[in-house]
């Protein structure tokens, strides 16, 4: 049976570093997509995934289980993205996230979404992603972004309206 993220974190805290492999399998893709949204290039997003995994390993003793393991990882990943953006000294260019990836020919709908997402600011992209793609509950989104639940709701409203407007889907 597949171990839960909480069990894996407990195993790592007890010194079983092998459990990191399973945590990587469970979270790497999601963390990578999240990092890519903020940074706009695959190499930097891969570096952020590395740093996130290592930061989680180093900080596992401080994880008290007050949030889910998933939101804990996203929180670390978000901090790593912010560090990278500060290191660059500017916000990322609004580049479609995976233009150099070996992916199948993207559909028109996907290109539209990527282009529209690229025009939002990083926080709006991250928020929409956590809610619509990752399906994190309100409390966990608030934990990841470090804001109250009420702020999550109001920011989501603005981000969603902006995205719809960019997609030409304003309310009739």
């Amino acid at each position: 049976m597949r171990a839960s993220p909480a069990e894996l974190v407990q195993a790592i805290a007890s010194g079983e570093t092998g459990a990191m492999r399973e945590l990587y399998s469970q979270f790497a893709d999601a963390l990578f997509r999240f990092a890519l949204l903020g940074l706009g290039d695959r190499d930097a997003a891969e570096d952020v995934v590395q740093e996130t995994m290592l930061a989680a390993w180093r900080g596992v003793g401080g994880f008290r289980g007050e949030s889910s393991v998933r939101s804990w990882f996203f929180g670390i990943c978000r901090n790593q993205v912010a560090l990278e953006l500060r290191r660059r000294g500017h916000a990322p260019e609004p580049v479609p996230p995976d233009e150099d990836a070996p992916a199948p020919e993207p559909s028109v709908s996907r290109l539209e979404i990527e282009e529209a997402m690229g025009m939002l600011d990083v926080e709006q992209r991250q928020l929409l992603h956590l809610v619509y793609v990752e399906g994190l509950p309100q409390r966990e989104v608030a934990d990841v972004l470090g804001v109250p639940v009420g702020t999550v709701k109001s920011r989501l409203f603005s981000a969603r309206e902006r995205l719809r407007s960019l997609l030409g889907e304003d309310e009739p």
Partner: protein
Amino acid sequence: MAQCCDEIREGIPWVVAGAASADQRGMAALHLARCASCRRELAREIALRERLRQAAMAVPGPGEAVWRKVAGRLERETDSPPERHWVLTVLGVCGTPALAIKVLEGALSPDAERPVREWLRPWVRLARAAL
């Protein structure tokens, strides 16, 4: 649009994502059953989520190459002593002789017995020179 509609619409993204609380789901179900406008909003939310998910899931993940880098760094960090041990080592190297000097200086104070002071004086000089 009623205030109730605002509240329901605020929670719809989480209802659609299956991440709403039982209370939110219950309230939404009751409201949606009698509000055509919010049902249209629900349909738009479902469509938006589907587009966002499809775009996100089409992005290839980082793969095994990144795991190999993580594993290599974990191995190096596990093999080498953590940084905090260096701090303790430095404190041990510098702190212990400093403490010893303080003890010896106490022994050499005017309150200490004269033979003890005479015997200890060269050792204190030696320790100071070594630091």
